[in-house]
């Protein structure tokens, strides 16, 4: 009896999951389909999911017209550095905010709200001038710093939540056992935070990878531009676009995030967290 309900529930779960994935993935599938379609099929009144005459022309044009590889390298550097630095500086601060009720936490919370709610367009000009004074205009470092700061509200806020979910008793137990504070943090707290840290790093990575506005105004020379900026070069006036090459480039630009996430997820699922709790 219970076995049968279990199996029915399982089937229901798979069905629900499939529904979710269809909803979330179908625009992407459409993008992939578009990337392989010749121009003639793009103008069809009854477009098909599978291209009738698949072609690689769009990819060829995209690579011919725009420095996609260079841009991808720039994006990768910016996103990896931003994710790494953001997690590195945010985790300790989040820890302090979560474990101590102080004026700092209140101020930080206020900052998170204001910095996220205030119109970005009004901040870009002062930010531009500050970076200019620091000689960071038109450098990836400048962009990375901006991405770190823009990922911090999310990073802090989420990490505080994850730290709170780690019971303080664990740390106390460890320090009673004689472990130093730093060792307690590294060997007890950090492993339990791992999923949260990974999620945060992923957030910072993807945000930076996809970010357009800052990259657009802060980078000038073509060799430094990032992928989202280069993608806009396929778009013309009145929202017209060179759809085929744009889709081809956008398809390639989507893959790294997906692959990285898939790898990380595989690791996490089988890896450290489950071990830490079950020991």
């Amino acid at each position, binding site marked *: 009896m219970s076995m049968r309900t279990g199996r029915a529930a399982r089937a229901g779960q798979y069905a629900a999951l499939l529904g979710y994935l269809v909803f979330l993935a179908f625009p992407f599938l459409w993008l992939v389909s578009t990337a392989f379609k010749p121009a*003639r099929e793009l103008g069809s009144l009854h477009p098909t999911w599978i291209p009738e005459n698949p072609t690689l022309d769009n990819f060829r044009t995209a690579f011919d017209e725009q420095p996609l590889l260079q841009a991808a390298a720039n994006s990768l550097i910016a996103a990896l550095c931003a994710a790494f630095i953001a997690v590195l500086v945010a985790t300790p601060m989040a820890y302090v905010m979560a474990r101590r009720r102080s004026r700092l936490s209140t101020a930080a919370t206020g900052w998170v709200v204001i910095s996220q709610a205030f119109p970005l367009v009004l901040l870009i000009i002062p930010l531009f001038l500050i970076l200019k004074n620091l000689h960071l205009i038109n450098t990836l470092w400048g962009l990375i710093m901006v991405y770190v700061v823009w990922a911090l509200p999310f990073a802090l806020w989420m990490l505080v939540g994850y730290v709170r979910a780690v019971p303080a008793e664990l740390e106390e137990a460890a320090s009673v056992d004689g472990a130093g504070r730093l060792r307690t943090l590294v060997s007890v707290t950090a492993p339990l935070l791992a999923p949260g840290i990974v999620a945060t790093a992923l957030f910072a990575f993807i945000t930076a990878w996809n970010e357009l506005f800052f990259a657009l105004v802060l980078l000038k020379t*073509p060799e430094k531009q990032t992928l989202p900026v280069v993608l806009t070069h396929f*778009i013309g006036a009145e929202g017209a676009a060179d759809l085929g090459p744009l889709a081809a480039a956008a398809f390639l630009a989507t893959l790294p995030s997906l692959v990285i996430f898939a790898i990380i997820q595989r690791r996490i699922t089988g890896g450290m967290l489950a071990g830490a709790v079950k020991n």
Partner: protein
Amino acid sequence: MRASLRRTAAAAATALALLLTGCAGTDDGGGDSGRIELSFQSLAWQKESVDANKQLVKEWNEAHPDIHVTYIPGSWDTVHDQLLTAFEGDEAPDIIHDASDDLADFAYGGYLADLRTLLPDRLTSDIPRQSWSTTTFGDGVYGVPFLQEPRVLIANTRILAASGVRIPTPEHPWSWPEFRQVTRELTGKGRYGIAWPLKEPVSVTLNLGLSAGGKLFHRAADGKVTIRAGEGDRIVPDTIHDQVNTDHSAARTALGMGGSDTLPGFFGGKYAMVPLGFSYRQQVVEQAPEGFEWTVLPAPAGSAGLAQGVSPQTLSLSEASPHKKEAAQFIDFLLRPPNMVRLAKGDWMLPTGTAALADPSLHTAENGWATGVAVAKTLRPAPAQSVRGYPEWKDKVATPALQEYYSGAIGGDELRKRLVDDGNRVLARYQR
């Protein structure tokens, strides 16, 4: 020291090393002694046009070893935000490609150089006066208008021939009432006579409105601008409104589309005609199914003939550029008649220069080039683009009002009340 660091770093080819080079690279740029560095931001986005621009820059650099131009791609989608920030931060490119309807604020803001003393007479006299007036703000000229496109009717030849309607020519165009009648005749089962892609309803309405004598914006002797709706201002909006709501000869669903969105329906025979910018022919050629026959017709005419407003593409100079003279030389090079023809063909648009427009290769009937050239001299500056407060009037008043009018949610009186009364309130704030 830094150079050696850079070399080692590049050799290491790790992510971190790439980063270092990226950082150290900022000190490059004005490297070679005496060579002038200019940056040219181009918004070309279609393959042919990007190729033409890059090729011209290459030719310039080969001919001028002491004045080096760097080609920087930009995007129509983001150019305004990017330029505004760059101007405020004093980091704008030297040579700026844009459109005349985007220049007003930059020109009034003092960011663009007045070109009157910088350009050679050849160029000044080659481009007609009405084109120059699109880039004249106050007393100065802040851009060189070099490419423009009229709105034309791209029509399905077979449907047109089968219906037996009179085919218009630039000499004998349809009048607006005749046009309305024709679209009614072209409408059939599962087919509309026309699809108006009015994602941006204001510029289309105002630009075509010129043909019927519409003006809407009236400048008084003291320079103050007020909005008044006359008889001529009603013809174009009323025609579109009636086609959608009375005759059902225009597709209601197309009203929110951009130009490209209408093409599948056009190719599929759902729309007999689509009013599009001249450059959309490129997409038609590329995407039309095999054997699809199409033709380019002039837009309908009114009391002012075929007149319609355009906002040409422009080349401007940054006021902050230290090498305006050399940058102006580059513009002159780019816009020599043969080069202007290459740029025009790359973008499938019309050149503004009279010499370029006379080029025989543009007078071919193929792909409708000749029709475009024939209406070129009727093109006027888009109304109101130099009026301060126009962008706000457009976004806040005119766009929603026209959208509601065309979809039938409000009537003509309410439309005019909003355009005029609400509009004048907006303009008043800018003219205090």
